[in-house]
């Protein structure tokens, strides 16, 4: 699945009002992020529930965030985590508060850089394909080689570059 396809699924679920499935698509990833910050499963689940309820209230109040829901959910979680164990610092206005244009700018910036396509964008097509098939689809090396019609060591070489790119994007940034 490509990034755009995933966002399109979210948009369809939102349009259909299928919020159960929309939130479920991202729940594990949101909890994983919260666990990485809090190092505590229960606290992480609390934080995700808090963030999800906030987004839910906003959607029910008719708020149009104007950005893909995965960006909104991850950003609301980020703001929620800032308040976890620390003074509340919450730059995302609630739905009944005045809209802050800086929030839209920030969400747009997050949207631009967040997807894997952006992370892998500068790499050769084969490296992008191999890295996406491995990290995004969980495919075996032999399977990737067969599907792309290349040698196994070519997959390994492409993955080596892909891993380095991911490391640079997610760790060294």
């Amino acid at each position: 699945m490509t990034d755009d396809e995933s966002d399109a699924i979210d948009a369809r679920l939102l349009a259909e009002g299928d919020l159960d499935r929309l939130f479920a698509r991202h729940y594990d990833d949101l909890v994983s992020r919260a666990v990485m910050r809090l190092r505590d499963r229960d606290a992480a689940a609390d934080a995700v529930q808090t963030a999800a309820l906030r987004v839910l209230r906003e959607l029910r109040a008719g708020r149009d965030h104007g950005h893909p829901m995965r960006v909104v959910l991850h950003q609301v979680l980020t703001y929620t985590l800032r308040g976890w164990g620390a003074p509340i610092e919450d730059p995302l206005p609630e739905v009944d508060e005045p809209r802050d244009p800086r929030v839209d700018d920030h969400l747009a910036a997050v949207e631009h850089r967040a997807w894997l396509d952006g992370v892998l964008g500068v790499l050769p097509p084969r490296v992008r394909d191999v890295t996406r098939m491995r990290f995004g689809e969980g495919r075996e090396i032999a399977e990737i080689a067969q599907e792309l019609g290349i040698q196994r060591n070519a997959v390994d070489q492409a993955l080596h570059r892909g891993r380095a790119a991911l490391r640079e994007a997610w760790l060294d940034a």
Partner: protein
Amino acid sequence: MPEPVLALLEEFAVRRARGERPDPLLYLERAGDEADALAAMIEGLVASVPPPEPAPEVVERMRALVAGEPELLGLRLGRRMRVDEVVAGLVERLGLDRARAPKVRRLYQRLEGGLLDASRIEARLADALARVLGVPRSDLPLTGPPPAAPAMPDLLLARSDWAGSEVIASAPAPYLADEPDEIDRLFGAA
């Protein structure tokens, strides 16, 4: 000996993509001194790579969340308090042993999630809860008919299973196996 962090990231990514719901905390333990580096990369991964199909139990849990926000939960969230803050306040005000906080936490979460009959909790728990949440006792949403059956899945207690069997296998025995004690009586769960 910590495992190479990129190998751990890749293993996590592959299992996540296959819908296996790997527990990230276990991966951090395997990373040893490189845990912070792995945490940063797992954050990047889950925020960047399209999610796999959600597990049915997660869909059920979100259905419960969307279907109705329990009033006590809404009250706590409205006051921007964490569960641990409420639990710590209850333990202190009720004069309980701090070592029993995990059990208080589990029962509070059942109460908050609408899974315990709120009309059965002891008055001193209700008083303590009102003080901790900073509301008059009469404003605590503890009335209403007892649930004949859980109106929603065990949303909060089930949270620890979100990462699948890895966590379940290492989890302590369920509290329901314990003998009823003062804490059970406080929550009307004895």
